[in-house]
């Protein structure tokens, strides 16, 4: 061993070690690094732990399908309106390409997946937004699918659960995307007036036009730990007021403290909490 090895910079040490000892081949996808605490985690362990870091409880961002798989009873999910795709309504430059790219990379048609399923044996309508599709932005199809989900729930007297994740309204659809805020809110109101339960689960990040519409309209508003929940995103605020924001500003815990979230719920307990809430609202009795 090199006598001066101990004074070498660390990275150099590692490099020389690598050439000396033949490391076993480890495929990248076997490991995941926690973005919060930096711990290397076995992908299979993360998977088993509902995509939560076993060390610091960081909740990894997950896509809409995974979310539904975690929440719905096995094989109970039936998707609605899966075939709906967005048009470039206002002929916005570059939007067609952006849509194509998002469809390819996310393998989804839009930023929300809706359907019916059972949770703890109870029939519900479920909508799950997808950050992998244009950062979960709300275009006309997103708005329409959510509106349809609420209308379906109202028509069939079902409770509805919506998982939100969104950068806000989709500017490539101009005013039409803004109108989706009113449209979805109207559908929520009709569902509410029919005496039906609506639970929102805010996940990281939920912001802009989605926060200022159906995300904040639930009878019960849950949130995942440390999720960013905002109307205006932190960067926009920092630019406006020209000062740095405190670290915890706009986290789920902060928003709960301010009185706008009912409860921050660990993802591993989410299904149980949802089931209990549905039961407390007298859903699923007929099943017993």
């Amino acid at each position: 061993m090199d006598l001066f090895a101990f004074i070498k910079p660390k990275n150099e040490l590692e490099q020389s070690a690598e050439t000396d000892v033949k490391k076993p081949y480890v495929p990248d996808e076997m490991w995941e690094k926690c973005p919060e605490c930096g711990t290397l985690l076995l992908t299979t362990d993360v998977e088993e732990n509902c995509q939560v870091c076993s060390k610091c409880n960081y909740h990894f961002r997950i896509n809409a399908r995974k979310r539904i798989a975690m929440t719905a009873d096995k094989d109970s999910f039936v998707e609605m309106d899966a075939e709906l795709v967005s048009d470039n309504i206002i002929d916005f430059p570059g939007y067609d390409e952006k849509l194509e790219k998002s469809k390819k990379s996310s393998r989804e048609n839009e930023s929300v997946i809706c359907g019916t399923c059972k949770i703890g044996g109870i029939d519900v309508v479920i909508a799950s937004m997808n950050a992998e599709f244009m950062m979960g932005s709300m275009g006309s199809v997103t708005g329409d699918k959510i509106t349809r989900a609420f209308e379906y729930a109202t028509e069939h007297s079902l409770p509805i659960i919506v998982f939100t994740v969104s950068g806000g309204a989709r500017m490539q659809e101009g005013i039409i995307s803004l109108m989706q805020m009113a449209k979805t809110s109207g559908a929520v109101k009709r569902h509410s007036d029919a005496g039906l339960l609506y639970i929102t689960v805010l996940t990281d990040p939920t912001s802009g036009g989605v926060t200022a519409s159906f995300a904040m309209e639930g009878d019960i508003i849950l949130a995942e730990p440390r999720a960013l929940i905002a109307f205006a995103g932190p960067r926009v605020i920092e630019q406006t007021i020209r000062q740095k924001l405190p670290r915890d500003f706009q986290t789920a815990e902060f928003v709960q403290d301010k009185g706008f979230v009912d409860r921050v719920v660990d993802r591993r307990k989410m299904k149980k909490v949802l089931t209990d809430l549905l039961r407390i609202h007298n859903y699923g009795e007929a099943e017993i």
Partner: protein
Amino acid sequence: MSAYDKVLAARDTKKPTSRDYIKAMFGESFIELHGDRSYADDKAVIGGVGMLNEMPVTVIGIEKGRNTMERMERNFGAAHPEGYRKALRLMKQAEKFHRPVLCFVDTSGAFCGIGAEERGQGHAIATNLMEMMTLKTPVLSIFIGEGGSGGAIALAVADEVWMMENAVYSVISPEGCASILWKDSSKAAEAAEALKMTAQDLFDLGVVERILREPTAGDRKMFESLKLLICRTFEKNLAVPVDQLTDLRYQRFRKIGKVK
């Protein structure tokens, strides 16, 4: 005029503000009512009751202010959550007494700041959207200048939305759009074009019902004819059974961006 010229015209500080409209149309009959009953009185939003000809009306307007002092006091027409909550409180009051609601919109957007977030800007806007949709009294919103995103639609879930010929209404400011999409805020003119945010574009998209000739301050005749138009619309809508009225309001928004 290019789309961006319209944006600049909409921001023109010399054009009449909500206060001017209220004064010109309600005159001495306007009684301002303050506060949201839970936190404060937001001066970016003016509200109250008054007589429009022979008709009692609740009127709410986002006020930018007419000079530097006023603009500071009015926070440049950028409302906090308490502003939207004040507006909703007055709308609920109008519903109780079955008075029509008239809203004037003129804002670059809901305020972005620490207090606004802490007090639930998103929640305040969301609640307005939900409650206005089923408000059991006629609602009319008129865009007199800028219609900036969520902060504008929070006062525009109405039976009809009208716009002044030089008003704009958009999901994002052209500057914001250009800096996000093209990392270059100097491309605002291109963004304004692309966003289809002028009254004429929005009329074509079926988002507004009427484009109005813009009155200049002191133009009594124009304000009189606008007043008459508003009264006639309210009379028409007051005659519609409320359940039908709110259903029409829902359908008005339901069809926008509806997928076949």
